[in-house]
């Protein structure tokens, strides 16, 4: 899965000398939380988040009148509050790499550049939808969580046993275990009775941590 397959193409952008009141309006209109910022030539020069704009707005408790406040806000430009050191990625970046960059830098979105041109944006929300898919959150089946030894061939033994019972694996995810010798696997299976599946897992010597029908 690459960024190209899940990014929003033609993202809503804003020009650097736009007043922040206008930027907030654009965000609300398009239901987005951040906007790539372009200069007059269409080059990416920054990114601005709703939070940057909210922190820049005067607190409602100031002694300014509503007219003075509106005047001040209309003079404050996006270029004054945006982040200029923008981290960008190319469209063929693996999605988990994009997710790692967002997590490590504590940012919620990455502009996607191809040959210096803005071609999309990928956000935490996009990654989140993918996580649901990975774990089959919207599919129904028997959900098992197992502890498996961190050894070559364990995954093959597990999936082969399910296939032999005629089971269909809807989703499968591997997590780090309690220590380096184990991994935790969550698997969602259709078309196998729970008892038969559990018995097969016990025969493999796997520890069953949780079972539920979802």
């Amino acid at each position, binding site marked *: 899965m690459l960024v190209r397959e899940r990014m929003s193409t033609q993202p809503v952008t804003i020009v650097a000398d736009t007043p922040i009141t206008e930027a907030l309006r654009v965000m609300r209109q398009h239901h987005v939380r951040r906007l790539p910022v372009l200069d007059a030539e269409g080059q990416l020069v920054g990114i601005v988040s709703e939070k940057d704009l*909210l922190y820049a707005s005067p607190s409602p*408790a100031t002694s300014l009148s509503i007219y003075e406040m509106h005047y001040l806000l209309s003079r404050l430009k996006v270029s004054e509050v945006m982040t200029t050191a923008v981290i960008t990625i190319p469209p063929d970046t*693996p999605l988990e790499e994009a997710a790692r960059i967002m997590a490590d830098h504590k940012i919620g979105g990455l502009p996607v550049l191809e040959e210096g041109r803005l071609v999309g944006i990928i956000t935490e929300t996009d990654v989140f939808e993918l996580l649901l898919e990975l774990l089959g*959150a919207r599919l129904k089946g028997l959900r098992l969580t197992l502890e498996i030894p961190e050894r070559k061939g364990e995954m093959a033994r597990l999936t082969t046993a399910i296939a032999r019972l005629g089971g269909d694996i809807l*989703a499968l995810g591997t997590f780090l275990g309690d220590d380096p010798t184990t991994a935790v696997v*969550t698997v969602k299976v259709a078309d196998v009775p729970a008892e038969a599946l559990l018995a097969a897992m016990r025969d493999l010597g796997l520890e069953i941590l949780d079972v*539920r029908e979802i």
Partner: protein
Amino acid sequence: MLVVERMTPNPVVIAADAPVEQALAIIEERKVRHLPVVDEGENLVGVVSEKELLRAAPDVAVRQVMTRQVITVTEYTALEEAARIMADHKISSLPVMRHGRLVGIITETDLFRIFLELLGAREHGVRLTMLVPEEKGMLANLTGEIARLGGNILALGTFLGEDPTNRLVTVKVADVPAGKLVAIMEALGMEIVDVREG
């Protein structure tokens, strides 16, 4: 994987009568984006986000700006179920309750880290993405062949494919050369979409 394994236990809370200013100070100091709101009896009465606080006057009580209709989960909710609730309701955190008491909080950020783990983003190996025919036993064939080559599967994730007849599988494998892995997968009838070392 259940919520209890990845939640933050004993989260920082704010009193419903505290001023917005105090809540914002806690949010900044503890580097969190949401605070569960409690009454005098430590009962959960709401949740307040950084954004709701930023839009309010500093001397107003938190209870005036908090969200009252709080969706909660328990420690034994499946993680993907918690993720589904957040996505469907467009919220980014869920208080975790045990017998009506607040025992933790689980956020989008916690789930984000799980995604990294699931696809082995912090481990090194050959990363292969392929279209796999949607037939029973295909995953078993795939993992069986990797084992036969002496490969160690670091991560494996299944995604929806291009249509209902196939699905997309991303797998990260150590201890097998990329070329050998690709040849075997093609022989099994998989369509290779992407190969890289990472």
